[in-house]
């Protein structure tokens, strides 16, 4: 029996299992991309408009978040798309590949399913091989849709450019899929495999950002995303970066297959040897334990909040100019008498920031129910932990944590804005606008606590409410919904600082709602059955 026996059968099983999920990924990435460029000719009818847009790429902050700036002298639609969108389409393809690979290799092993499969007439590395094939195929699918679709979407886009774009996207996707295939072999858990792969993707993003901002080629070459951009789609296409992709992919794939061949089922190479045999003092009280369990959740949201804050501050001036030229965009902005455009812009940013912080807060609160359902809640509670005390920790971690996210983001945005405008007052205003969102975020926490006490089975409703209010906040102004609909949202209760005046009473009312919800939740959680 060869080590590849059964690859074809496994491949067919995988397709069956993945057909819905993978189709959604493939279609979302390729079709959404095509849809999003559909409006470009209307938005930028003349060469002058496009050159105006190209100016944005002069700013380091935007260059870090977009492309390398090839072809900005003559900013055609093709150059615009490559500079501003390639990055994101490629990153999406990379995520699709990473998750798909890990789902079908290490995660299967973790759940013990692969044991059944490998016990059958299946070669040692057939699972990896089948997953690899499916991953390559999915990326090629995306490439084909893009290559065929782009010239139809915008007139005048060349086949050659579309090919460079599409193949570049597939190259990045396959590259990271292969990286995760290797990671799935060496690490012992699915979480670690996708975590390490995603971190490498983040590094690749960062390296090319540094390369693009400082125009240093060495950094760009460190990043597979940079290789894709170096194909210079629609500017002057170059094909030799394909050699880098090919070489890298083959090397990594061979390494992954080799490790898979050598190791035991279920084992890894990066075996976590010798963890701690004892719990330190911090862990052995309840809040310490819960904080420890949430530390990565918080840190990753904090990194996001910091990035968002810095980005807000960095692009505020340019973005204000941009909106000044684009009246359509103003629908999104908080309108207020006598406010500067930058202030309106910040007021809008802050509403988004509140959504981000509420997302973290709800992730913490809803974890509580999952703990209860999994039996980890039960085993804690019988160590003579009163139920309200148990809930209190989640409340603290989500309230204090979300407040800290607002502070972190506010410091980033305020400091940069103050630096650009040389105004301490401006910096303070922006910072204050960030922390002024706190009560709106906490109302969601309160709602979660209330449901946890009264009706735990319906806890996931908080996500529905959150999504509804977030959507209303995002696109409500465009949908021209009746005013009362957007008015019941907690976000809407916070005045649009810094564009509008801050008011004490709105904060007090929201905090009162939060307090009532929380107290009722803590009281009623003592009165109900544990969800087991």
């Amino acid at each position, binding site marked *: 029996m060869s080590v590849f026996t059964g690859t074809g059968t496994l491949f067919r099983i995988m397709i069956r299992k993945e057909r819905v999920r993978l189709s959604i990924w493939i279609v979302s990435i390729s079709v959404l991309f095509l849809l999003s460029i559909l409006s470009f000719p209307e938005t930028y009818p003349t060469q002058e408009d496009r050159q105006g847009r190209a100016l944005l790429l002069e700013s380091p902050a935007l260059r870090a978040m977009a492309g390398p700036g090839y072809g900005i002298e003559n900013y055609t639609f093709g150059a615009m798309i490559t500079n501003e969108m390639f990055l994101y389409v490629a990153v999406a393809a990379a995520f699709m590949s990473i998750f798909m690979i890990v789902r079908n290799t290490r995660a299967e092993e973790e759940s013990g399913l692969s044991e059944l499969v490998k016990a059958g007439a299946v070669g040692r590395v057939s699972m990896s091989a089948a997953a690899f094939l499916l991953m390559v195929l999915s990326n090629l699918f995306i490439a084909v849709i893009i290559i065929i679709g782009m010239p139809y979407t915008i007139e005048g886009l060349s086949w050659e450019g579309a090919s460079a774009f599409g193949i570049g996207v597939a190259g990045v996707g396959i590259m990271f899929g292969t990286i995760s295939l290797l990671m799935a072999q060496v690490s012992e858990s699915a979480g670690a495999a996708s975590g390490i792969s995603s971190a490498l993707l983040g590094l690749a993003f960062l390296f090319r950002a540094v390369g693009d901002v400082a125009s240093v080629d060495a950094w760009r070459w460190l990043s597979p995303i940079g290789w894709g951009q170096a194909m210079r789609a629609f500017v002057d296409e170059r094909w030799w970066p394909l050699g880098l992709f090919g070489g890298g992919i083959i090397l990594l794939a061979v390494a992954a297959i080799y490790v898979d061949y050598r190791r035991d089922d279920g084992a890894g190479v990066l075996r976590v040897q010798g963890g701690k045999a004892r719990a330190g003092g911090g862990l052995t009280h309840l809040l310490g334990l819960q904080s420890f369990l949430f530390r990565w959740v918080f840190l990753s949201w904090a990194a996001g909040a910091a990035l968002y804050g810095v980005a807000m501050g960095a692009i505020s001036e340019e973005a204000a100019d941009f909106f000044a030229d684009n009246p359509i965009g103003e629908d999104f902005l908080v309108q207020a008498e006598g406010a500067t455009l930058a202030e309106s812009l910040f007021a809008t940013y802050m509403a988004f920031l509140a959504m981000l912080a509420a997302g973290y807060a709800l992730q913490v609160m809803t974890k509580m129910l999952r703990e209860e359902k999994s039996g980890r809640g039960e085993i804690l509670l*019988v160590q003579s932990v009163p139920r309200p005390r148990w809930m209190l920790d989640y409340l603290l971690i989500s309230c204090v944590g979300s407040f800290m996210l607002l502070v972190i983001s506010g410091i980033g945005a305020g400091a940069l804005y103050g630096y650009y405008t040389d105004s301490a007052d401006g910096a303070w205003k922006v910072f204050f606008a960030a922390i002024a969102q706190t009560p709106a975020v906490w109302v969601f926490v309160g709602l979660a606590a209330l449901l946890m006490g009264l009706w735990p089975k319906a806890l996931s409703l908080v996500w529905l409410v959150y999504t509804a209010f977030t959507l209303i906040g995002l696109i409500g102004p465009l949908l021209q919904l009746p005013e009362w609909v957007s008015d019941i949202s907690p976000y809407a209760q916070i005045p649009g600082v810094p564009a509008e005046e801050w008011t004490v009473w709105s904060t007090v009312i929201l905090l009162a709602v939060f307090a009532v919800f929380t107290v009722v939740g803590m009281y009623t959680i003592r009165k109900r059955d544990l969800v087991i």
Partner: protein
Amino acid sequence: MNELVKLEGVSKYFGKHAALEHVDLTIQNGETIGFLGPNGSGKSTTIRVMLGLLKKSGGEVKLFGKDAWTGAVDIHKRVAYVPGDVNVWPNLTGGQVIDVLGKLHGKFNEEKRQQLIERFQLDPRKKSKTYSKGNRQKLALITAFASEADLYIFDEPTSGLDPLMASIFRECVRELKHEGKAVLLSSHILAEVEELCDRVSIIKEGKIIESGTLEELRHLTRISITAETKETVASLVERSDVHQWEADGSKVHFYVDVEGLAPVMQKLAAAGVVSLESRPPTLEEIFLRHYESKAGEAG
């Protein structure tokens, strides 16, 4: 008062479904109680009602003289509990989990902790997510045995343990008994219950159907008779207290209810008994009889 646990007429409904109906159960100081019953009969539910994790729908539940629901937190201080399905935090090591749970519980014996880790052959440095079911169960067992408590509650504690570890578990329970602690042991392993428990309660479809010492259970139930007689005793099969009649020539085998033993013996003697073997039923026979549905039971 040395009655640690007292359940009286306890019922528990999940919606319309009655998981427990009029359950009575007592545990005296120093007693080890076996709690048996088929899958889904209500053992775990009873335990959770006792621990105030589920709210009773009716009846009275008292532990250490306190109401199980309102006094749950105080009660937990005096109870060590090992759930049937042990789930812990995947990213903590086994040693960390034991410490976390032990310290939260309060009275935690460090010395015992070390000894138990060695006895149960647990590697405390491994992350919990890499533990097998049995090893996760060991975590909870070590925590419970190292905690000072008056009542130890085990819900199917050996379902994931290998035979060697199961015997170490039994050893640890014997030590608890020796210290005069009370134990409630829910289990499907009959030998374990037979070896450890002073009294047994059998629950079926939410009702306690049998309860008493093993001796009582044996003698209050049917007795197995194998006999060889000169004349036929076939008429015995008519009796309502004779069950599972099997005849093979002059040899017969059947069970008889205790009340019917005397008349049946007279009948056998009258028929000229050649050989007679009577024994109380094994625990297994008792269980299987109770576990089988009413429909499947002969006579």
